[in-house]
């Protein structure tokens, strides 16, 4: 469990980091920030970058800022800091981050690193999709913005080029008419999810305006679905927008079932078969959409 030889650089300017990454031999450069996924890969010699570009000393990548009704989390910001400082501004992050590994992992791991790693069972990509976050990528040709929905292309795969760095992610600040739900099932606390969902609901006077829900651990990438119509019908069927969460959950069973059948395509493993994952997505989607809807009413 010792890494194969590699070069290590730790630039202090973003421009230098991009240059180092671009000049790595055979395109074998790899960005390291928290290293919580990358270091085991190196130690097991499953990955052999020629150069590691450590971005944690790039000053501009250490900031977390609020501008334009967005929380901008730069690439070197640790998950633990986001959890502590931004859970009020972006409540879905606050709900999801406790599920990311353990506290020790979150105090090293970064939010942008989790997005760049693009594990299909990870929490941050699903949250980014449900929040319609924007990922900023910087390369030799400058910066570009990519919506989270377009960012993930498959298992451990994104639109990022080998010479580009994920430099930040911007999450919209919560509005008062929004509610959230997040849940996942794992064999142990801190494990990657067997299946999970991240839900956001916006409503006006009880009427559903938006209801994106992203399922993870179910496919080669997180699966975003618009459940606004189904949620509206469920609420209508109860005839009472203030119906208890459990009743809304029950009313959502059918559409949640249909969504689960649609989004779960993974072959499954010893922790969760395809059928069990479908069951979990059905249960969690109905519960969390109902929870998100109910909490969206409170701000109205």
């Amino acid at each position: 469990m010792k890494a194969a030889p590699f070069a290590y650089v730790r630039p202090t300017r973003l421009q230098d980091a991009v240059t180092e990454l671009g000049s790595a031999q055979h395109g074998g450069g790899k960005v390291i920030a928290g290293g919580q996924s990358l270091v085991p890969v190196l130690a097991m010699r499953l990955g052999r970058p020629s150069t590691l570009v450590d971005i944690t000393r790039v000053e501009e990548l250490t900031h977390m800022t609020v501008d334009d009704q967005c929380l901008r989390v730069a690439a070197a910001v640790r998950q633990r800091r986001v959890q502590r400082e931004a859970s009020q501004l972006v409540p879905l992050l606050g709900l999801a981050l406790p599920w990311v590994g353990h506290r020790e992992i979150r105090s090293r791991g970064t939010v942008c690193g989790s997005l760049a790693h693009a594990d299909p069972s990870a929490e941050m990509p699903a949250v980014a999709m449900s929040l319609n976050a924007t990922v900023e990528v910087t390369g030799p040709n400058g910066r570009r913005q990519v919506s989270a929905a377009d960012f993930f292309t498959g298992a451990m795969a994104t639109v990022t080029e080998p010479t580009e760095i994920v430099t930040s992610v911007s999450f919209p600040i919560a509005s008062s008419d929004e509610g959230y739900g997040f849940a996942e099932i794992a064999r142990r606390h801190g494990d990657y999810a067997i299946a999970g969902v991240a839900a956001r609901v916006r409503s006006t006077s009880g009427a559903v305006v938006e209801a994106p829900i992203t399922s993870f651990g179910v496919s080669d990438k997180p699966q975003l679905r618009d459940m606004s119509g189904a949620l509206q019908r469920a609420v209508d069927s109860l005839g009472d927008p203030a119906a208890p969460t459990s009743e809304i959950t029950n009313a959502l069973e059918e559409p949640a079932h249909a969504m689960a059948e649609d989004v779960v395509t993974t072959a499954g493993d010893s922790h969760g078969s395809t059928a069990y994952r479908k069951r979990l997505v059905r249960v969690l989607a109905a519960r969390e959409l109902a929870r998100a809807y109910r909490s969206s009413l409170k701000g109205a």
Partner: protein
Amino acid sequence: MDATAKGPGRQVTQPLTKIPATSDGRITGSRIEDPPLVTGQGRFLDDLDPLPGTLVAAIVRSPHAHAKIRKVDLTRARSHPGVAAVIGPEEVLETLKPFPLSLRTNMPYYPTGTDKVRYVGEPVAVVVATDRYTAEDAAELVRVDYDVLPAVVDTKKAANPDSAVLHEGADSNIASDRSFTFGSVDDAFARAAHVVSEEYKFPRYSSTPMECYSVIAEWRDESTGPQITAYANFHGPFSIVPILAGALGISTAQLRIIVPADNGGSFGIKSGVYPYIALMALASRHAGRPVRWTEDRIEHLLSSSAGSDRIMRFKAAVSATGTVEALDVDFQENVGAYLRPPEPATLYRCFGNITGPYGIDAVRMRARAVVTNKVPTGLNRGFGGQQLYFGLERLMDKIAVTVGKDPLELRRTNAIPTSAFPYATPTGGIYDSGDYEKAFAMLTESAQYEKLRAEQQAARERGEIMGIGIAAIVEPSATNIGYIALATPQDERVRGRDKSGSTEHVRVSVDPQGVVSVLLGTVPQGQGHATVAREIVANQLGLSVEQVVPKIDMDTATTPWTITTGSYSSRFSPLLTSALVEATDRIAATIKVAASVLLAEDPTELELADGEVRVTADPQRSVLFRHAAGLIHWDPGSLPDTFEAQLNAEAAFTPPESTAASKTDQINSSLCYGFVLELAVVRIDPETLEIAIEKVFSVHDPGTVLNPVLLEGQIHGAMVHGLGGAMYEEMFYSESGQPTSTFMDYLVPTSAEAAFPLTSETFETPSPLSRLGAKGAGEGSSMSFPAVVANAVSDALAPHGVQITSLPLHGNVIHELLSNS
């Protein structure tokens, strides 16, 4: 888990043995081992550099479960900068012999594959270099050409005559097949009102010590022949020493093994380090320098060792009222690719207690050890107990359903009555003491059993899934190694070469200032032996604990040891403490003679207390213990004429009850037999099917309690180990023999999973066979808890027509069971 003694549910029934406090009253059971460990001052083998110029090894391992080794090319690796030596099968065959096995079978076992590889991770070559990075770089340059062969990992398939054969020199993959009958088994089945039977599968899981294997070996060719010095975190059994010497082709006197005092956990698994001692000694011979190898996590998980997986057919003859009259068991043990000594010991460790806590007079047993393309098995906390009791205790539940009795009541009525102790089992065990009736009464009370059942009924009516599981087990300790002979038929066992025993050694000495040193050869791995030994010696000699200094040391050249030495089968509490009492008795007698000179009083009139030697009838007349000791050191001329100024006492506690297997194939396989009665309440989320352990009640009788805090730690630890097997850990192999290889798949429970409320209670029926009445207590719940969880989940799902016959249990498994029911 509630580790601190608080909360309304927690109670300790019996006032436990008083824990000696320091003179200022500071210590109340905390461990002297802890301050250095929790401040990073522990000195483990990887922290030590005992042999200057030591090089570092990396091992090339097989990626295949079963393949013929066609060609091994070491040329490129040997020419890599920084590499001192590279060895492969050729070098192994040139110098080493196969390890002597526990029974006669033609399945040669070397520390590397030689003709073939037989499991993923089996060593093939060793690279010795300046550092581990370089060694691993060069290891990638070792080229091994394989002809891949069909692999077999399933026990039944491997036992089938059509199966791929692992060892061509043997007739089949069945390494051992023995049958035993005790009592009138056929009669009992013929007249039984019910015959209840089931097949159970126990999974393969392991231990996960914080420190993996570690070895430093040096081979020196001296004028008298090779001399091998090995540092290793090996902890016994030292029956392995002659096995190692046999493989190295040297005498045991040419092999010196030194174990560092700090050993980062084992739970049995580190006994499997020994093949690497032979391998690194050979690597050192070729490198001409000492060689260090530190096993990494991947290596440990992939290829160190494991508890065995077992297929078990249980059959019971049961009376109309639910009395079990006879038991018929058929064990098929998957020992992995080689019958690595001391295997097939797992099959026989519980031989004397195969009927558990029940008064069953007739037993039939068939025991087969089957080789497959999995990693070889070895010691793992519980060692045979968790397998046995999973089957026996699942069967007891099935019997309860069959005869329409409550499962706790069925167990209580079948349990050996208190008046029957000491109790001889049909297989040769002699249960030294017990009061199972008391344990049943305590559990019924503390768990409020009837109320629990009423709650369960109410929960079921609300559509909730709730279950109550119970297991009653006998916890054997202080193994009698003679049981391994049972794997060999009686008429093939060589007369005069019997094996038996359970000896444990200690050396106690007193310095000129009256400080008592205690040398422990038990090779602990974090259990707290030093803490307990200090308390016992202080108690025995009437001293404060500060005046006693325990020293952990194992050096086969200087420490007293025998074949049975080592830390396994919970030997410390019954055996080592008995040796301590015997040694301190001798020290006390000597000190009294010295004091008798100072006090002008007959030694028989003296007692040791409060750091003094005093006249029993007139305690005012006294001398300090240290003055008496000082007299022996400084002024032996004043002692009685024939008196030897001996302030060193060695004792080897040798229980006469541990004798070799009889001609009738019976054996008292352990010295002591404790008791555990455990109950768990589980709930299963009807939608997600997640299993939650709601609460656990555990009653233990470990004989005399030596230190209640450490006992509680052992109960917690053993239970969480059992929890791993019950719900999380499984060394799973694909059909082609590819194993789980990382902690992404091999899930060890963490503190979050172990946080269920536990009420543990203890009472004592002292053993008449150990000097303090103590029995072992380190394994009980690791044997019972898998059965407890399975019984609880099975009870929860009974209304859904599901019964549990295998482990581990988790949402995905429950989903599958419910989908198929």
